[in-house]
């Protein structure tokens, strides 16, 4: 076994920061000022990276947070005599609140509308700042004193450079923590497939709002720094063009990666300095660079790459469990005499829309470990039934009860948290993440809340329990060896199994599989049959939509047949297979008199 020196990539950052510190000793005043500006824009880049790079929410008004940070700090210093350091937490909190205010209206919007709304907020902030007397109107605030550290005043550009470097290092450290956190995974999932994220247990609304709040907080730090550097807060520094350049940082530098944000800041501030002679062409150059980058390298120069999750060795014995299941089992044990009702009860689910009855009066009672298949011709209402059960669609009538608790009308992520997981007909994995990361994300649904307890989810990543879940799930579906491969690169059958593993990771008591064998080869179908059977032996109830009758008949305890939304048969597989009504539904009734043709008689000659 060869010993390999493991180079922790984070060491690279330490080297960079130390290197900058050393360079600070040798550089001239002008270079130091530019360097400080690069660091300030680096902070802005790290901030916008959260909302654009991770969560995929196109923010065209990020300068608003920059401005709010600057104005809040300067106002407190100039009007209330506060010290620079005291204003920082206030500035951050105010900006974070603004982030929530700006983010809230965008939660239900499509990406294009979202972009314009953020632009609108950016403009509103700028116009307000330019027109209020308290903010100094179009001239802004002047006379902002330099920063003091104890008795020492930071007046020289070298002093300020080190101040900026210190702040940058802090923000960088925070970003490194956030990058591997549970919330960051949620953000990345939202960017790739928001509906799938919701269906896997991610609280998308909360997560998106949090993205704005965190991004705003980080971005606002650049404000007081800039105010201290220039001694003024000038509203012409916070225009739409500023927001655009902050966006350019991540678009050109690289989305979703810290290195990309820093590289972008270097380019955005550094390039115009290098081309100082052609200053007036700066904006045009960036505009063209923007278009070219998006055409040629849409994810930027240094985008995020999926990182391997360290699963360690060893196998797990215990399947994943939600915190609530432990509680429930305790409660169940305390009442041994009670008759155990069905694990899953679906009563009279009906779904009507636009005059069409997609599902009518669907009933189902499921015990732990049972495998029930839902079959029926195309358009019979099977997927709609699933959607009603999992909260993607609200049923017109009827209710869904899981372990006695009503799930009707709960959001999809609430359904997962309650213990019912599902897979999709057209496999919806997070293709840019690795297999292990996909399953890890599914496992995060076991936690009671997004960032709890005490905000831990914001900086803490996968704990030991989470990794154990991933190990167990990947072993169960037989994909442990592919853990570090990108989900998008796997074969169809393997992707299907990853999706099942991800569903199992949330510790469900019921799993809904929508056409798991669709498009699978006969060999893959055989291993799927085994897999489904094994899920049943775990005590998890399975509901299956399938068209492959061989699979259905061999694996199911019971079969329910839908046709035109109505249940036309239910029972053991062999019985259903011989039911004449079922045969007719699939193959059509025997041909008898076709009846009058709606085609006019004259046409038939």
């Amino acid at each position, binding site marked *: 076994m060869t010993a390999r020196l493991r180079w922790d990539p984070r060491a690279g950052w330490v080297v960079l920061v130390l290197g900058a510190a050393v360079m600070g000793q040798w550089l001239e005043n002008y270079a130091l000022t530019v360097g400080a500006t690069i660091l300030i824009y680096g902070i802005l880049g790290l901030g916008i990276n959260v909302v654009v790079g991770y969560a995929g929410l196109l923010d065209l008004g990020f300068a608003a947070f920059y401005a709010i940070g600057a104005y809040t700090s300067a106002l407190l210093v100039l009007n209330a005599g506060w010290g620079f350091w005291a204003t920082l937490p206030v500035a951050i909190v105010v900006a974070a609140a603004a982030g929530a205010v700006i983010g809230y209206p965008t939660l239900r919007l499509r990406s294009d509308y979202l972009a314009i709304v953020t632009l609108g907020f950016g403009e509103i902030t700028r116009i307000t700042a330019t027109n209020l007397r308290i903010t100094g109107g179009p001239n802004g605030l002047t006379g902002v004193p330099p920063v003091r550290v104890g008795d020492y005043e930071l007046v020289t550009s070298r002093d300020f450079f080190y101040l900026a470097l210190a702040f940058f290092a802090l923000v960088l450290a925070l970003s490194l923590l956030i990058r591997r956190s549970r919330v960051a995974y949620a953000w990345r999932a939202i960017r790739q497939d928001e509906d799938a994220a919701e269906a896997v247990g991610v609280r998308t609304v909360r997560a998106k709002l949090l993205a704005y709040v965190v991004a705003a907080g980080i971005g606002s730090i650049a404000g007081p720094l800039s105010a201290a550097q220039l001694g003024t807060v000038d509203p012409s520094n916070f225009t739409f063009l500023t927001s655009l350049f902050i966006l350019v940082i991540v678009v050109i530098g690289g989305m979703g990666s810290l290195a990309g944000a820093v590289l972008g800041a270097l380019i955005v501030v550094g390039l115009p300095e290098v081309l100082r002679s052609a200053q007036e062409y700066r904006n045009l150059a960036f505009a063209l660079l923007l278009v070219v980058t998006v055409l040629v390298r849409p994810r930027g120069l240094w985008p995020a790459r999926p990182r391997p999750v360290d699963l360690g060795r060893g196998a797990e014995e215990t399947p994943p469990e939600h915190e609530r299941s432990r509680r429930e089992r305790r409660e169940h044990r305390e009442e041994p005499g009670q008759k155990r009702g069905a694990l899953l009860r679906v009563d009279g689910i009906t779904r009507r829309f636009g005059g069409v009855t997609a599902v009518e009066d669907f009933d189902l009672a499921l015990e732990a470990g049972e495998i029930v298949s839902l079959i029926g011709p195309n358009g019979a209402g099977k997927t709609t039934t699933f959607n009603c059960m999992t909260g993607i669609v609200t049923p017109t009538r009827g209710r869904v009860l899981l372990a006695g608790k009503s799930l009707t009308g709960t959001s999809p992520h609430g359904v997962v948290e309650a213990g019912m997981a599902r897979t999709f007909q057209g496999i919806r994995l997070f293709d840019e993440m690795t297999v292990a990361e996909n399953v890890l994300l599914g496992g995060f649904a076991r936690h009671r809340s997004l960032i709890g307890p005490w905000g831990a989810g914001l900086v803490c990543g996968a704990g030991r329990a989470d990794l154990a879940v991933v190990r167990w799930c990947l072993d169960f579906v037989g994909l442990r060896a592919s853990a570090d491969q990108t989900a998008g690169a796997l074969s169809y059958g393997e992707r299907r199994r990853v999706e099942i593993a991800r569903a199992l990771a949330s510790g469900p008591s019921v799993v809904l599989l929508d056409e798991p064998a669709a*498009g699978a080869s006969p060999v893959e179908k055989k291993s799927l049959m085994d897999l489904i059977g094994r899920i049943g032996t775990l005590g998890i109830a399975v509901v299956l939509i399938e068209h492959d009758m061989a699979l259905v008949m061999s694996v199911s305890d019971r079969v329910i047949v839908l046709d035109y939304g109505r249940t036309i048969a239910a029972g053991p597989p062999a019985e259903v*297979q011989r039911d004449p009504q079922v045969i007719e539904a*699939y*193959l*059509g009734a025997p041909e008898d008199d076709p009846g009058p*043709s*709606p*085609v*006019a008689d004259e046409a*038939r000659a």
Partner: protein
Amino acid sequence: MSAPLLEIRDLSSRYGHTEAVRGISFDVRAGEIVALLGSNGAGKTTTLRTITGLHRASSGAVRFGGEDISRCKAHEIVARGLGHVPEGRRIFASLSVAENLLLGGYLKRRDRALVDARRDAICALFPRLGERREQLAGLLSGGEQQMLAIGRALMNEPKLLALDEPTMGLAPIAAKQMMSIVRDIRARGTTVLLVEQSARLALGLADRAYVLVAGQIALRGSGTELAKDPRVQAAYLGGDPAT
């Protein structure tokens, strides 16, 4: 024997990450009604979409009227006389019946008199459509929408009409009427390629049929032969064909 009107050779096509159609070959001769059967996910719709240019084949060839159309765009294929009534009808719901039919005659739009004449002919063919000329297409019943979709495709007087599941979502009576319509279409001189999930209905009127299972042709034969073949039921419902 003349060359077939439509020739499919070793056609393969992907749907997302799957190989939905794996190397199928079949013919449709002028004047025939040929049915493509199979349960869901068997690859019928993908086959049709690949033939008519909405989908790019990964390998294989499609020849229509003796010419290779594998690389042609959808609107070019329509211009050559291959009509397609897509799955789910896909009528333009916010446009009227008359406007839908007008669009069916798009390729002949310069000759307004011709388009109008054809539109009148279609309305005479489907009196129910003629009665509802100015109605919004989205308000028609399922069967009427299907008639509109077919009428729209007939506006171009195609040599071959591909119909994708015309009976889907229709009540049994309407489904049977749809089959009569298909018979009449053939009687008027249009060759028909019919994709259907309801095997018995289609086999009752097709001259020949192919049964697709998992993207490949599992059974082939004349309509009457396959109608009596127990293997067809097995292809849909699994189980032992002997029972």
